[in-house]
């Protein structure tokens, strides 16, 4: 996107109903997942989504939740991780700023579509900032997870404008994943075809980081 906002004026007139409830369901199921384990969360979220209209706003709110997670992760990492080399510290700040820009763009897009952006969850990253290695490993997992989440959700997007926006973001997540992997001395692109994960798989992966 040329700007940080999705330009889709014709879509802004579409009214999306039930989003307050939708946002609430998404948030509370994520919290329930943290408290009771992945299975209860995935069950809840499937039924929650089945009851509502679905659609692009739901997918955008799902993406927004993941971008909140990544933004918070790098914001804390930039402050707390000790022993990073200068280029690693620069990378951390670059990734933080990119993820924050994704949060802003997704929030604006959801509003443009007449939806209600989900609230930022409370995150807990455990020992992820205890060492350089722990931080980089978690960052690697989060970025690879982000790629497969977007790749899995994008084909369900109805609007070509929203799809283009999601494509512009997933490419950045993939670049992030490669950069973090290089720092870790890991192959930047381990597979010829990146994975596409469904929401259940992603929620299971990020569950340990979501407190409420």
């Amino acid at each position, binding site marked *: 996107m040329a700007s940080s906002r999705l330009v889709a004026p014709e879509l802004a007139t579409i009214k999306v109903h039930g989003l307050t409830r939708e946002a609430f369901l998404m948030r509370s199921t994520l919290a329930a997942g943290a408290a009771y384990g992945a299975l209860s969360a995935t069950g809840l979220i499937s039924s929650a989504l089945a009851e509502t209209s679905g659609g692009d706003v739901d997918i955008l709110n799902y993406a927004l939740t993941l971008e909140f997670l990544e933004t918070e992760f790098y914001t804390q990492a930039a402050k707390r991780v000790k022993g990073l080399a200068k280029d690693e510290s620069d990378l951390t700040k670059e990734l933080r700023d990119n993820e924050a820009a994704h949060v802003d763009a997704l929030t604006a897009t959801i509003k443009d579509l007449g939806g209600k952006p989900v609230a930022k969850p409370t995150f807990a990253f455990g020992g992820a900032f205890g060492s350089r290695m722990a931080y980089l490993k978690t960052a690697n997992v989060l970025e690879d997870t982000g790629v497969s989440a*977007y*790749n899995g959700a994008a*084909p369900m997007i109805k609007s070509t404008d929203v799809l283009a926006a999601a*494509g512009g973001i997933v*490419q950045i997540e993939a670049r992030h994943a490669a950069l973090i992997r290089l720092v870790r001395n890991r192959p930047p692109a381990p597979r*010829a075809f990146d994975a596409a994960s469904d929401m259940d798989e992603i929620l299971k992966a990020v569950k340990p980081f979501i407190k409420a």
Partner: protein
Amino acid sequence: MTDSALRELADDPSSRKRFFKMLGGAGAVSAATAFLAACGDDEDKAAGKPPAAAEVMDNNNSDLKVLNYALTLEFLEADFYKRVIASGMVKDAKVASIAKKFGQTEQEHVEALTATIKKLGGTPVKAPKTNFQPTLDKGLMEVLNTAATVENLGAAAYLGQAGNIKSKEVLAAALSIHSVEARHAAALNTLVGRGFGDGKGGLEGSLPDGAFAKPMSEAAVLKAVKPFLA
């Protein structure tokens, strides 16, 4: 690169399987297209759903066009890595392993796209005749810089087609390649020391467009790769 990292470079058979699983529906679409086309106009009118056959056919044809365009770019990339490795100019073990792995990956993309095009009832384009010798003659840094630029181009090319793809299965498959091209681009840009980029676009830098990747049109991409075509 450490030994364990090198071991991770080993083939991942599950990723190929996953690609074809995504395309599970594509064969069915192709068969349906053939069936609907065979039914002809009279059948459609009698059934009261006239646009179905034509629409499915058009969507199939436009996806085939996108897939053949992608195949042309993958041929170009695969050929480039093959020539670079054959030249023996890459001495550094880390760079060599990345060039080899990326080259294998592009070859897998060629094979997967070829299979997909056939599955949809289309004819895969032939590999274009390339002209990378002038690049090779300029030495390793020029080669790596070119690889970085071409991968950025590939990522932008796939992104530019996302909205044109009609079939969800084909879209899912293209996305699974798009993010790999993006990984290649970021890694090569870092290896040649380009940094993040200015965030204002272009084909240089690991994050040349900043937080939001920019697409490129087919015309712009074909113009950019023209120097490499014989």
